[in-house]
């Protein structure tokens, strides 16, 4: 139902018409942002394994996975949202509010088996609020979610104040970080992988997923071609809220501490990973595998540099540079390519504007 306007596919089609189908398909694959992110990931893992003592062990791998688990979880729905040209900056506050509510409910004696689904429901409701403000009220998501970012964090402080609830049972807190039997891999890796498959299939292999690209490329055109834009967006914000709440539950158990300021500022790490993963902030392009690569790349670089005794400040500089380079390089490459193409006489029909 939706027009196939994924960037790499379009690029490949154009080059294919130029006459060298096999080679250019490879070349366009090599050129995608996802490939460069995954390449950078492979290089950093290899370099860190060879150069940084203590990096290439299962134990450290387990630490790494636990460090990035929450960012990876939240990045999944965020990818879909950014592809539609929207953004959800309230995710970290949703996480914080969920954590605070979880703490308060536990404090008054509600069993955890009830708290967890309630928290997920709460997250979904918070997501619906974002979604309705964006779709029904027609407000820009940047403004809406900056507002709810402050609102949800504020509510978290109303619920829990500056207290911390930390007497969760060991079986749950230890369970959250426990490893799969016989390995160093925390079970949360399976949760992330499972959800990644779900979101990946929805995004890349269903009409709904293709519709998201259409919305992100040209919302007006998408609407006229019969795509239910508001329903799609509402669904995405709801999913984002629910997954942020899931991350909130996990975070609370992982650190064994429910606090209103949990995950303060995490939304920036998530957005950074999504952009590093090759998703365009203007919508319409990106792939989930790139985002997972981005999350892993940021986590690996951070972990390896910490092990190599690089200070926290230098670490922030490196992460920042990585992000800037990841935006600047493809831009420059695209501009160079365009110039080369303009210099050479066109061999086929002109490429459609991106």
């Amino acid at each position, binding site marked *: 139902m939706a027009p196939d306007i994924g960037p790499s596919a379009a690029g490949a089609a154009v080059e294919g018409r130029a006459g060298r189908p096999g080679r250019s398909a490879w070349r366009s694959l090599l050129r995608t942002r996802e490939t460069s992110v995954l390449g950078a990931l492979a290089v950093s893992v290899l370099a860190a394994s060879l150069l940084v*003592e*203590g990096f290439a*062990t299962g*134990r*450290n791998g387990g*630490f790494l996975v636990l*460090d990035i688990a929450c960012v990876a979880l939240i990045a999944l729905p965020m990818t879909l949202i950014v592809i539609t040209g929207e953004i959800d900056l309230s995710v970290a506050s949703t996480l914080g509010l969920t954590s605070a509510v979880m703490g308060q409910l*536990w*404090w008054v*004696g*509600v*069993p*955890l*088996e*009830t708290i967890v*689904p*309630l928290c997920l*429901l709460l997250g*979904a*409701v918070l997501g*619906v609020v974002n979604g309705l403000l964006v*779709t*029904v009220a027609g407000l820009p998501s940047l403004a809406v979610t900056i507002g709810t970012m402050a609102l949800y964090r504020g509510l978290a402080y109303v619920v829990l104040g500056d207290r*911390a609830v*930390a*007497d969760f*049972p*060991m*079986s*749950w*807190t*230890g369970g959250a*970080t426990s490893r799969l039997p016989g390995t160093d891999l925390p079970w949360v890796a399976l949760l992330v992988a499972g959800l990644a498959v779900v979101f990946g299939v929805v995004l890349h292999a269903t009409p709904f997923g293709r519709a998201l690209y259409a919305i992100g490329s040209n919302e007006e055109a998408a609407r006229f071609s019969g795509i*239910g834009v*508001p*329903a799609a967006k*509402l*669904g995405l914000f*709801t999913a984002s809220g629910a997954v942020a709440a899931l991350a909130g539950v996990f*975070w609370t158990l*992982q*650190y*064994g*501490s429910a*606090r209103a*300021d*949990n*995950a*303060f*500022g995490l939304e920036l790490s998530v957005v950074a990973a999504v952009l590093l993963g090759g998703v365009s902030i203007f919508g319409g392009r990106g792939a989930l595998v790139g985002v997972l690569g981005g999350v892993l790349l940021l986590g690996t670089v*951070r*972990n390896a540099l*910490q*092990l190599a*005794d690089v*200070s*926290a*400040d230098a*670490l*922030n500089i490196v992460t920042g540079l990585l992000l800037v380079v990841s935006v600047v390089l493809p831009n420059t490459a695209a501009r160079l390519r365009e110039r080369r193409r303009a210099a050479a006489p066109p061999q086929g029909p002109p490429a459609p504007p991106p």
Partner: protein
Amino acid sequence: MLRTRIRYGVTAAAVAGVLLAATACGGTTRGDDEGAGGGGAAGEADPDAEIPEGLSIGFLPKQLNNPYFTYANAGGEEAAEELGGEYKEVGPSEASASSQVSYVNTLSQQGSDVIVIGANDPNAVCGALNQASQAGAAIVTYDSDTDPECRDVFVNQATAEDIAAVQVEMIAEQIGGEGEIAFLSATPNATNQNTWLELMEEELAAEEYSGIEVVDTVYGNDDDQKSFNEMQALLQSHPDLAGVVSPTTVGLAAAARYLSGSDFKGEVALTGLGTPNQMREFVDDGTVEEFALWNPRDMAYLAAYAGASLSAGRITGAEGETFEAGRLGEYTVGADGEVVLGPPTVFNADNIDDYDF
């Protein structure tokens, strides 16, 4: 179409709610006691054990580039040098509850023998510390403790009793043993300050301080401007005030700033807890005679020695064990694995220039 979807959503939520209510009976609740996990002291202490050369001692402050911890950790480095160990400081750039966890993991992965940590949250680092401990590291907390289960020894900078006592002594001496005094505290529900205020009142009830009367307690909310205004109001509403005690660094600095520019300078005594860098100009211009705080450098120095003694097996963190802490002398492990640095340091014109924090 959107509306039908919303209706479906609401129905689904309601159904979920009912299901939840149904499952609410039974389950893991706060009342269930699982029994505390291990931790604490284990094994036998051997007071004569050698402290091995080349111990790696990792310091993990609440936050890097925090002047207080930068100054403190210089003491840790000094101790590590004396012990022939390897000093290292790592830490997050923001002081959040969870940000220290990956640094604990890093230190553990690097094979640190001793981890000295000032915890941002008493529980968030627990899991990581326990894992590090299992991997063979001695865990010492300083400045801010974790749950006692998660560390071997806590180096407490000063006990509440000592902090209260030193402030009462200072104000009594400065006002000549009699007169009206008032407290300028942080927030009305600040745990530390309230404990100290209570202990100071108890102390002042003693016979030797019978000439001193506490006439007011005001709160500056640890906000510079508010503390400044409260100090001003205090002096106007109590014309006979002889002295003010401010057991918070923000309050003391703001009060001193007001006092130094007012007619009450030299008339009304001011003391409390403050840092030498904030108070230097007011000691120099005679507004403040003496104030107190613990010496953070000694705190980190002691923490390094405690960690090395643990790692060598000289102590296990059990009550009553003693260990040697270089230039500070001998210390005894108290209840719950606490080692108290000692009475707070009093700063005045004679010694204030020896400190930089």
